[in-house]
């Protein structure tokens, strides 16, 4: 079957198997920035935003979200035009091996869109599905707090 998505602002049409999950469809079509790992929704590496809401793309049936707007990490910022959250992650040392980073930043991005002034608890809750085996999470939480500051100072998109 054919599905249509708007991925990072660009309309895409893909041929899919109706039983496939979104992660596989995205990666097969060049979106290798979306990482795959557990296929159970437990690690969060495959996080994407679907109509602005973070989801594990390994548990989302690609056919179910036909017509949706999908944001991957490339829709948030790039190497030459980083988003304040990405800058904050680099500055605070919240990136080590980098495998979980796209998903974690997307969860943080969705949080700050919904709640620009989160508490520590809000930050922890919003990142609780993105496992990181390198940083110990402290730096990630500090990064989101720094990003809040950067965004308030107007260093935003």
């Amino acid at each position: 079957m054919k599905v249509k998505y708007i991925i990072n602002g660009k309309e895409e049409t893909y041929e899919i198997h109706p039983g496939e999950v979104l992660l596989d469809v995205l990666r097969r079509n060049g979106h290798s920035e979306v990482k795959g790992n557990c296929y159970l929704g437990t690690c969060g590496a495959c996080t994407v935003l679907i109509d602005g809401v973070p989801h594990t793309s390994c548990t989302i049936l690609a056919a179910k979200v036909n017509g949706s707007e999908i944001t991957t990490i490339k829709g948030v910022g790039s190497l030459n035009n980083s988003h304040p959250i990405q800058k904050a992650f680099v500055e605070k040392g919240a990136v080590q091996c980098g495998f979980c980073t796209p998903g974690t930043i997307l969860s943080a991005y969705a949080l700050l869109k919904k709640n620009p002034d989160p508490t520590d608890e809000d930050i922890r809750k919003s990142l609780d599905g993105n496992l990181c085996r390198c940083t110990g999470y402290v730096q990630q939480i500090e990064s989101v707090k720094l990003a809040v500051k950067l965004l308030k100072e107007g260093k935003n998109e």
Partner: protein
Amino acid sequence: MLKLKGVEDVYYPGTIKEAVSLLRRDKEGSEIVGGGLDISVLPNPRIKHLIFLDKLGLEYVKKTEDGIKIGATSSISFATDSAPMQTYFNGKVKEILNEIATELLRNQITFGGSLGKREPYSDIVTMLIALDAKVVLSDGEWDEELSIADFYKGNFRKLIKERIIKEVILNNFDSSYFFSMERFVRNATDIALLNMGILLKLDGKEISNAIIAVGSRPKPAYLFEEGMKYAKGKSLSKEFAEEFGNFVESHIDVDKDYRVSKEYRAHIAGVFAKRILLEAMEG
């Protein structure tokens, strides 16, 4: 990784009537998809047809005279972000829901999907039974309202091959009611080793009625009727909380699995019951 190899086609019905008609065409080979978490994590190779409910307008949380109506395709996050849930049981139910799984999964798990699957470890099912919530089934022409406890007493799997879960209704409770829930998990993302929800109707310190639901035992959630009878008419006190905890530990219907022994589960159940009663004493 192709998870659902047997799927041949998918449908996006625009009405409940249309969804029911598609479902009845091949009851065994069709699957109604709420959030789709369960089906993607535990894929069933016999499924040939997927019926998505996203176009039915069942994503809502409404406050009505009867209570709060939650549409079947509403996710946990959608519900906890809604205005009516901020004040329901002083935000306690919202707080409990926000402890389930992770933010990413709370964005996918739906109320209808949780009820339809009745996974033994489901915290939502235990919570809804304890809250004496109702489920509304519909074929598009006729809606039937059932208490969730009654829904599971019958052959609910047959019912949901004939009709669609349309919504869940949370009853209104006045300030004489107390509700709390406990769940034991090894880490934040784990499924519970045991969960327990208790609703108490209090007349001063006297428990005039109690509803106790226990799940992840590892069998599906059930009403612990012996405990409900035992608690009824008793007065809340530290001594009774202790006594009740002991009663629950020795009478609860739990079993062992590869994660935990029967005795340990029963012990946790006793601790939870005592803890909830002490919490009720503190108000």
